[in-house]
């Protein structure tokens, strides 16, 4: 279980101090799929980096199964939007997956089985000898997922992983991810600015307000069966509801971008 209690995050530079997050509270249960939704500048990636242990907090507490998060941990793996730079381009598909097994000193004898299992799960077993540069955007993201799953973490932290993909590939990736989530029971924290994506995926959607002093303004638990069809009136109503709430924030987000506030 991930527990975020009253978290405050301040970015301090010589001239200005910017309060990015102020009073974030969120509890994420094991096996839950939570989306952090908000326009750019709402601090959702900052919160994800804090959960990953890449960034510290200036107040409040973040714990994973009761233990304070201070650095990257074995039970949490982050997946990045830019798979091209997150993957190791000089390693083949198979070698990318092997990397985590190698650095975690997992016994060599078990490697082939683990690698096969997860390459099959993301449907990349026929491309195991290829290099990431030879893969499509969707395949690269699937490789990132396989590489993360291979070290068998409890939590996947996903930072807009499908935002750079074309719409058709993104829809396919949603189905792939939901299938993997249902089969493996991982906890997933998924950052997105795409309302439809959040509704398609999440057990709960945490909507974040635009900074400074971002908070989680609302948590929605869509009580809808999966797969969720966006033309279903109940789903469409939820979409419009969230969009209406985000509208004023979106305008503020644009203004903020013009002011070049550090984030």
């Amino acid at each position, binding site marked *: 279980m991930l527990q975020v209690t009253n978290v405050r995050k301040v970015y301090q530079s010589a001239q200005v101090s910017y309060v990015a997050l102020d009073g974030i509270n969120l509890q994420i249960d094991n096996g839950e799929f939570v989306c952090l939704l908000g326009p750019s500048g709402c601090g959702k990636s900052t919160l994800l980096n804090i959960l*990953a242990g*890449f960034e510290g907090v200036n107040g409040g507490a973040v714990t994973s199964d009761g233990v304070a998060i201070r650095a*990257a941990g*074995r039970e*949490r*793996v*982050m997946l*990045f939007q*830019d798979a*091209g*730079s*997150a*993957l*190791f*381009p*000089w*390693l083949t598909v198979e070698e990318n997956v092997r*990397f*985590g097994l190698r*650095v*975690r000193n997992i016994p060599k004898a078990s490697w082939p089985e683990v690698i096969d299992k997860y390459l099959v799960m993301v449907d990349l077993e026929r491309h195991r000898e290829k*290099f*990431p*540069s030879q893969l499509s955007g969707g395949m690269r993201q699937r490789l*990132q997922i396989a*590489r*993360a799953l291979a*070290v068998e*973490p409890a939590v996947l932290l996903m930072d807009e992983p499908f935002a750079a993909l074309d719409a058709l590939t993104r829809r396919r990736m949603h189905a792939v991810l939901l299938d993997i989530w249902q089969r493996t029971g991982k906890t997933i924290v998924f950052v997105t600015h795409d309302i439809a994506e959040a509704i398609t995926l999440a057990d709960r959607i945490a909507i974040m307000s635009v900074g400074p002093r971002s908070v989680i303004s609302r948590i929605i638990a869509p009580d809808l069966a999966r797969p969720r069809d966006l033309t279903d009136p109940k789903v469409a109503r939820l979409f419009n509801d969230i969009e209406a709430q985000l509208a004023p924030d979106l305008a503020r987000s644009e203004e903020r971008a013009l002011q070049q506030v550090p984030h």
Partner: protein
Amino acid sequence: MAQVGDSEVNVEAAVPGIARPSLHDLWERYRTYLLMVASLLVGFGIWHLLSTFVFNPFLIPPPLVVFKTAIPMLLSGEILADVTISLKRVLVGFVTGSFAAIVLGVLLGRIRLLHELFDPIIELLRYLSPTAMIPIAVIWFGIGEMSKYFLIFWGTFFIVLINTVAGVWRTPIGRQRAAECLGANPLQIFALVVIPSAVPYIVTGMRIAMASSFMSIIPAEILAADSGIGYLLQKSSMLMQTNRIFVALLTICIVGFLADRVFRILVDRTLARFTSLAALS
């Protein structure tokens, strides 16, 4: 693909270009080579016309005279001996300089304190070209091999160092964090992620440094040597042998070009997985 068979043959017969290559296809296939040969021929042609009709042929000997001068120099082994000695100097200085620069570069790129300590010195010293260092190198090392090794080392070192530091710095933060999540410790991130990510930059730096080494070895040999291509230039100049000077100049062009090609082939053979995929990062 599986059930094509007949139709594929028909397509081939219908398109005459595939059955019998036309002049156009030949041109498309070999245009790079044809244009390269044409470029060289035109170059030699202009050189010939200029030296025959515009300038004094003694000051600019025509290409045929230069080739005629080159043949006995090649046959007697004179050029080979000079090329060998110059190449050896370049190689020793280049390899040691690159090695030292890579070792220091990855450390400076990784350890901020070290960078802040060394950077001001490097930023000043890198403006001292190998040529500027010749007078002091002669006093320190004499006109023997060591002074040439030192000068090439000097020139190579700063170029490769700056590129190595840049390569280490530009390792995507996401890649390092991904490795950290997967369980890599700081040393593993450094060795297994940062250094491989820097390889394309290091190789680029080495290519530039190699070209620069071929430029620096010449003044070094002109001013402080009794052998090598630079010395051949100097000796021929004293004797007013412009044709031999041109042979030496042409030799520098060819040897430098070939060395770069060999370097690229070696890199492709050994480091292809690091360099050919640089576009991705």
